């Protein structure tokens, strides 16, 4: 199972078209703005994570409250569970 690190909204489009079903996906940086776009593209809520600090800085924590907001230790755990780890930042 791959882990996709998504850093932007255009990166998300590039990613969702190339990910396997059930690959996990973390939104970081400007990627956190694209939480609804990720759901619309068919990513299962259970496979979708936001970096909590980045969502908080940008004021999108509340709008994305239904999703899993993670810290760095949890991100490290995800990278242990998955391979390869692919970054998307078009």
């Amino acid at each position: 199972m791959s882990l996709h690190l998504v850093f932007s909204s255009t990166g998300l489009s590039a990613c969702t078209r190339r990910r396997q079903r059930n690959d996990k996906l973390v939104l970081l940086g400007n990627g956190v703005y694209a939480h609804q776009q990720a759901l619309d593209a068919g990513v299962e809520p259970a496979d979708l994570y936001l970096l909590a600090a980045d969502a908080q800085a940008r004021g999108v924590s509340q709008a994305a409250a239904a999703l899993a907001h993670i810290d760095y230790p949890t991100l490290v755990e995800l990278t242990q569970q998955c391979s390869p780890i692919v970054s998307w930042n078009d």
Partner: protein
Amino acid sequence: MKRFLFIVSRSPYGSSHALEQMEAAMVAAAFDAKVAVLFRDEGVWNVQQGQAGAAIGQKTISNVLTALPAYEIEEVYVCADSLSGRDVQTEPSLSVKPIHLSDQQALISACDVVITAQP
């Protein structure tokens, strides 16, 4: 005195470019220039409510924007077209005006200088 337009097309925090650009806008206004600011595309996220830059050790850009009127920068626009399709909740302490594409055409043409910061 020239009329300046600063176009911000990038969201905040991902880079410091929007912040640096607002510093330039304030300096232009301090030089008595007539200054307008337009947020478009991903740049509209700069006016989002509830930002907390401290979470990642950065200045909160919406707080910086509240200082614009003190610099007599009163024309602060947000592209209406860019707002639609993004779930932006405008920070209530900012007085920003949605502006349609046709009015943006007129705005750009009416300015002497357009300063951007991209990509």
